[in-house]
């Protein structure tokens, strides 16, 4: 239902099976340079090392890295905390390098973070994505995020953003929902993943 595949550069696509990708939870300082270099090359806005540390020190359980044959090919960085009256998760950065896009790596990374957030008692998860980032919008749409608001001229380049929100079912209200039974199977969406999967932190620096 979401936008059909856009002209993604088929050239330079890596050949690999989904099982060859290894997903690792953030394991300490030695992972930091990997995350930083990945985010640095993909996102236009610069973040100081303190921004990265802020996330991975406080919420190491919410950050994941994807490896293929020893090479780091993707990462997700998140946080969670009290926001007004809700306990909410926030996806700060999501990056998969170009040759590995469209194969479900981002979906798997972000699903792992979301699952931990849910288990930790988050009521909802939010993030911002550029309105032009069709890939990210489709990915999050499939995971159940809605576009809650449009943020006018959100990025410094003048592009609008959507605030995406995923509301978890409230267990007391609807105990019968077949929730979260098989998130482990979530790479069944593999062949629908769009390129350009990433989200950006808010950049009003």
């Amino acid at each position, binding site marked *: 239902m979401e936008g059909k595949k856009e002209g993604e550069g088929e050239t330079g696509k890596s050949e690999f099976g989904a099982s060859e990708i290894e997903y690792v939870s953030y394991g300490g300082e030695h992972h930091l340079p990997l995350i930083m270099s990945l985010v640095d090359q993909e996102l236009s806005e610069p973040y100081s090392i*303190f921004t990265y540390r802020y996330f991975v020190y406080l919420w190491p359980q919410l950050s994941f890295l994807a490896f293929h044959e020893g090479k780091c090919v993707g990462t997700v960085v998140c946080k969670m905390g009290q926001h007004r009256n809700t306990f909410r998760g926030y996806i700060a950065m999501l990056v998969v390098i170009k040759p590995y896009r469209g194969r479900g790596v981002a979906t798997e990374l972000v699903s792992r973070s979301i699952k931990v957030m849910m288990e930790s008692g988050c009521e909802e998860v939010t993030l911002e994505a550029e309105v032009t980032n069709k890939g990210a919008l489709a990915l999050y749409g499939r995971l159940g995020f809605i576009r809650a608001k449009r943020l006018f001229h959100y990025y410094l380049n003048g592009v609008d953003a959507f605030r995406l929100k995923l509301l*978890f079912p409230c267990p007391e209200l609807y105990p019968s929902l077949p929730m979260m039974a098989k998130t482990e199977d979530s790479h069944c969406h593999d062949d629908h993943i769009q390129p350009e999967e990433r989200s950006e932190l808010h950049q009003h620096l």
Partner: protein
Amino acid sequence: MAEKGAEEAAAAVDVAVPEGASIASGDNTVWTDVSLLLEAACEDLRDGELIHGDNFNLFAAMSALEIMDPKMDSGMVCKYYSVDEAIENGAAPVPISFYKTVDVQCTIDIMDYLLACEATWHKGHSLAQTVFSCIYLLRPDRTSSHALLHSYCRVIRATCKAVISVVSDARTHEEEDLFTMAYGLPLDGDGDEKCLSLLNAVEETISRQLRACKAHSSKRRVLEDIEPLQENVDLEEGYCKALLCRLRFRKHFYHVLTSMRRPQGRGLELARKHIATCISELECIRKSAEFLRSIACGACDDDTEDRTTASGCQPIGFDASLNCRLSAPTPPRTIKILSWKMAIDYFVKLLHDLDIICSYTLDPLLEGVLHFVVQFQKSQPDLVARAHLQLLLVQDGKLYGRDSMFAVITRAAALPEVTKNHDIQNNEYIGQLGQLVINKLKVLCTNSAWQRRKLGKMLQDWRVIYVQLELAFRKDFGDVLSSPDDENVCMKIFQHILLWVEEQTYWIASRFLILGFELELYSPSEYCMVYWYMYVVLIKLAEKTHLKMAARNDTNKRKGKKKRDSLKDVAREYRIPPAVLFVQCQICLVEGLTMMLAALRNENMILQSPNPFNTEQERFFQHFELLQKACVPDHISYPAFDESTTYARISTLVMYNYFKDAQRIAKEVKSSFTNDPDKLAELRRIEQVAEHNSIALNVICQVGALDPKLKVSFEFSHHPYFATAVVKRS
């Protein structure tokens, strides 16, 4: 551990408390000398480590910057340390050249680039990085010896100041606050307020030079001895003309801004004349590009669409990095200035938008005002035009600075004449209601993203005021209300106002839902619930509008009872008013869309994959949270939606085709709107959508059963928010 909590680290160091600290430390805190701590830390810390307190948060982390990283360090010297240094190094010479032809040529480039900067500023970048990247503007006195450049710089500064004042007075710019930031920029040059007299004098001189050169070329005797603009005789006419249209545009644009600010819309007619002149001068500016490019040929950029001046040459005297070092609100990133062509297009659009505002007749009826604002927003006007509209609508807490809000409400709610002087206007809640109307008008002038959010929140206020008014009326007029006299004025006012408040509430709700389409907030899998919600809101809107109009007719009838033919009266009473029928055909259309989408889903003709983390119910709740919180409408919830769509089937829909009803009503009601082109156009679009969907429904019904590969998708090809079904064989 790379980061150490300050407290933990401090514990390891002997901390001395200074005597008699002069600034109060606040509750539960004391001042301490951290020198020793820092000294100890310096020995210990490696690259990339820091000491922080417990309150170290994301904002603090993101505010840290790495020195000498060109993306983060705005203090990094790109070229010059200061404006003075740039000037000393000849970055902005006065005159620009001692060779007059070059001087004129460069001045025109500066003018053109400033226009591009100004448009870029209006489009959402900071003033410091756009218009005030011009070194000449930063030192107002330096240009005084160069009358041409000086006059232009002055009018630019004065114009910026006028535009900032419009936008900050309107406060429509909540998310566009970068716009009015002008700290440290010399917006008030000495004598800028007299910018027009200097501009007129310079214009006069150049028009004489133009006349002189024309006379010269036609071998007529020159009437006055006048020094030409520049040395090259062949270029004199072209340069004079290029300068004149640029100067005249500035003059008239400044007039537009000032006349539009006159109270109660008194300057609108005059503003229209200046707008017309501005547009024609912009066309002359556009045409001058051919001449300017022919001279600059070779010396400048290739003919790209990106060029920021008419000639294509880079202007002298601009440095955007200077303000990065000097003024705080400027991020260290370079921005892309709009091309000169796009800048002209921007100003043409702005002037057209302003012209629409100026040609508005200041409708005294609120309904008309709302319709006008919504129509105006359809062309997606930018900030400056929206701010002007808002200032026109609401001045001194009155509509157009003229009609009190109570008078506006009285008229809108169709209250009897006597109300105008009734005590009720002093009621506290009536006062609050007036304030809500003002807020509503202001919010409708904001950009649609912001507008939608504010409208959603505003719904609660309207709901609360309804309840408060109802209680207040019951309390104040309880005794009279219980009396059987139905002619009672209070009773009338009470009913009319409450009805009108409800109508307004549903109007806001429908606008909130519609804006979601414009902002692309709904994904196709959510269309079904959105149309369903629109359906329940529009039903209420139609109901309240109908009741309001019936009450109005009732009042009118009473007034003219004796004069009128009673038979005609009866006939009139049973006719549904066109305004209600108009909503009615929208209702049929959204009902049809809801059911069609539901049926397609129920019969698995639209692919719906389940989401791993939540269900449709959560998405329903999220999308309509603000409506539900305000009980708009009452008793509406996900189960109600689920119930009304679960059993939808294509076969039943074909039997009872809502689209045919929409078409029929649209056709019928058209004749009532022959004087309203906007409504007529809308009815035509509704008819088209209904017709296409009706056909699509038949096709799906006939072919669908035989062809399991039939694909149905939805497009907004005929209407911005009513979708048209597209059926394809895959």
